């Protein structure tokens, strides 16, 4: 295992020399490559088919979200956060709203908390379904893509009925929710849970014991728990390396402490274990949704929040367990209506840094598998 602290930057200035001397080759993958899930450019240094090292070039989708945040009021910035991790927009909104609520020292009412948890967990499943479909497609299994997109549609329909949007939902407001649930929301969620349970078994039937899948994922892109912590890797990637850590349990937010669920972990930290962990997370999300939908209390959906949000001078760091890992918001207030500084700690950005360590010594085709298994969204990497 390469020690991540001792990795030296690649010598990219003299590729010709190394090419002649030792059959080394520096090639470009991306930024327009179907398997990089967006505009990611990876510079690979190869010895034949073997990866000696790689460097990620990112920033193609940089929109300056943090700068925009400083020039908008707290309320106006809320929809922007949905555009970072656009396949898990609900989680982004939850983290931001909770951070501002902490700064204001208010708490969303219990009814809002329950609905928030249901929508966030539905979104976690939608994010994992998109990951599974595209990851399997990258490796060569086409069928799961159709299965997962078919079922993800049902989640997006619930979002659309609830707030009118399918992807960038802007579902939450600072202090609670803007919309009361629609007539039949609970019935829809229950129907969905019963509908999707056997579907997850279906995905597993396609892949879990599939020989090609095993060949392509077992022992590929291994990262140990120690290295994962040193590299700041979080989320399912960290858990697949055997570290049992989930912010929903370690430092509970929203009302996750009211629900029973387990933290699935892996042992080997390879691509296959990360697949198994995410498949188990589907079932845990369903467990949480089932409990939450039975317990939605009556009551208001908004806390008492002033019309103009002006948090007192101070700063706060608040983080949640997004589908990709730890999503943190660091907000600095100067007492005005606009944040003085908004810092987003994006899980995809930090996890992507581990790509180099995970790919050294692997084959070129494995790089594709590892990019898929890291589950990055370039909108969030570049912000």
């Amino acid at each position, binding site marked *: 295992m390469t020690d991540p602290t001792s990795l030296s930057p690649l010598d990219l200035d003299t590729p010709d020399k190394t090419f002649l001397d030792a059959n080394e080759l520096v090639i470009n993958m991306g930024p327009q490559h179907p398997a990089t899930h967006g505009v990611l450019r990876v510079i690979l240094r190869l010895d034949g088919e073997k990866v000696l090292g790689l460097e990620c070039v990112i*920033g193609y989708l940089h929109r300056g979200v943090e700068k925009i945040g400083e020039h908008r009021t707290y309320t106006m910035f809320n929809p922007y956060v949905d555009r970072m991790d656009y396949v898990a927009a609900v989680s982004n909104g939850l983290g931001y709203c909770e951070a501002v609520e902490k700064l204001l020292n208010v708490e969303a009412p219990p009814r809002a908390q329950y609905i928030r948890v249901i929508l966030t967990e539905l979104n976690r499943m939608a994010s994992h379904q998109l990951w599974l479909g595209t990851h399997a497609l990258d490796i060569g299994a086409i069928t799961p893509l159709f299965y997962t997109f078919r079922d993800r549609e049902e989640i997006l329909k619930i979002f659309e009925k609830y707030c009118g949007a399918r992807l960038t939902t802007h579902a939450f407001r600072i202090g609670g929710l803007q919309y009361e649930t629609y007539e039949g929301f609970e019935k829809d969620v229950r129907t969905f849970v019963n509908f999707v349970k056997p579907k997850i078994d279906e995905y597993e039937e396609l892949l879990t014991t599939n020989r090609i899948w095993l060949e392509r994922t077992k022992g590929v892109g291994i990262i140990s728990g120690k290295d994962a912590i040193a590299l700041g*890797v979080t989320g399912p990637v960290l858990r697949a390396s055997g570290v049992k850590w989930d912010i929903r349990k370690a430092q509970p937010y929203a009302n996750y402490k009211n629900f029973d669920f387990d933290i699935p972990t892996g042992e080997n930290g390879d691509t296959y274990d990360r697949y198994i962990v995410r498949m188990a997370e589907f079932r845990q999300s369903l467990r949480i949704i089932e409990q939450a939908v039975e317990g939605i209390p009556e009551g208001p959906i908004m806390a008492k929040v002033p019309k103009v949000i002006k948090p007192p001078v101070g700063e706060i760091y608040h983080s949640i367990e997004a589908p990709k890992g730890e999503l*943190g918001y660091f907000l600095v207030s100067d007492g005005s209506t606009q944040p003085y500084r908004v*810092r987003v700690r994006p899980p995809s950005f930090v996890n992507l840094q581990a790509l180099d360590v995970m790919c050294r010594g692997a084959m070129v085709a494995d790089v594709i598998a590892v990019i898929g298994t890291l589950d990055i969204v370039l909108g969030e990497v570049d912000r």
Partner: protein
Amino acid sequence: MVAKLKNQYGSGIEPLTYLGQNYMVVDRSMIPEILQILRNEEGFDYCVDITAVHYPKRDKQFDVIWVLYSFPRNERIRVKTQIADGETIASSVPIWATANWLEREVFDMFGIKFDGHPDMKRILLPDGWKGHPLRKDYGILQQDNEWVQINLGIESGQ
């Protein structure tokens, strides 16, 4: 823990709490030592984030902030220091490997250099870009026109 550090280092450390979150303001010269102690002796093995805040009216214009988490203690702490424009700060890549990209982003956005970083260059903006966008004196519509004209062949990106 903070009390122990305070005893040891005296006036260079000021422990504070806001809304139940602990942070400490540390003198710039003591940063490498304090971070090393937090990592090795106090168990803060996970560097969550490194970021900065710009206060142009202050003498020491920048706050640099480390958000740390300890797996054994299940505890977070923030370390904060103030530095002036043009001053550098010791890199924490030898302490936490994850600091590599996070420090590059701080350099990209604020122009703060980290001593001893293995590859101190821009990360999100292109290499030839002029200016550091998250500084307060960088306008929201501002861009490096020269770079845009040369590299994109258009008059303006706006």
